[in-house]
């Protein structure tokens, strides 16, 4: 059974600091997603990582994938308040990019001035 674990589940950080969210998954998969969710809203796609060593960056967020370690990271650089949200990683359950995603429980990020 595919399991996806994120940590930490809660993260309170000060503006300007750096931090990393970790996403471990239990079986092989060739596709990993990162999503952002604001309170009361739906999921917004951040990154799709397709292969070992993939790295993608958008603004202050950078995601990477190590398929051998079954680990993805979401690195936050010089956090700002607007990044406060819940971040989810998800893995395709059958590795076939069909969209049957198994989600981590999410990391609730709070950035304080």
């Amino acid at each position, binding site marked *: 059974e595919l399991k996806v674990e994120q940590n930490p589940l809660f993260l309170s950080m000060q503006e300007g600091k750096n931090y990393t969210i970790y996403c471990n998954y239990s079986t092989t998969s060739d596709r990993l*997603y990162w*999503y952002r969710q604001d309170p009361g*809203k*739906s*999921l917004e*796609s951040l990154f*799709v990582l*397709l292969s070992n060593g993939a790295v993608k960056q958008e603004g202050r967020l950078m995601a990477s994938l190590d398929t051998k370690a079954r680990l993805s990271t979401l690195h936050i650089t010089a956090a700002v308040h607007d990044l406060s949200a819940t971040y*989810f990683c*998800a893995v395709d*359950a059958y590795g*076939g*990019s*069909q*969209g*049957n*995603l*198994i*989600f*981590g*429980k*999410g990391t609730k990020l709070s950035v304080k001035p």
Partner: protein
Amino acid sequence: DVKVTQSSRYLVKRTGEKVFLECVQDMDHENMFWYRQDPGLGLRLIYFSYDVKMKEKGDIPEGYSVSREKKERFSLILESASTNQTSMYLCASIPRGKYSGNTIYFGEGSWLTVV
């Protein structure tokens, strides 16, 4: 822009009522999904469909059924709503196949309260 539209954003239903949640996507995607999201449990897959009239059970199908009569529309049905089905329901879609960089698009969500 891809659009996944869930027609009902907020619903309040009584226990035992039959509930329909509708989802329409405008990008000709083959694959469509229904998830529910609960605090502390994250998102869990209820049902999915790879084509018209096809359906597959996800991780938590009990108490739900689905209908896919047209490619663009995927409906989630609660035959007899119960209070433990109070949740946020998210519809999603993606084109079939290993297209590089494809992401899964989510609707805005339907908040269902069963009283």
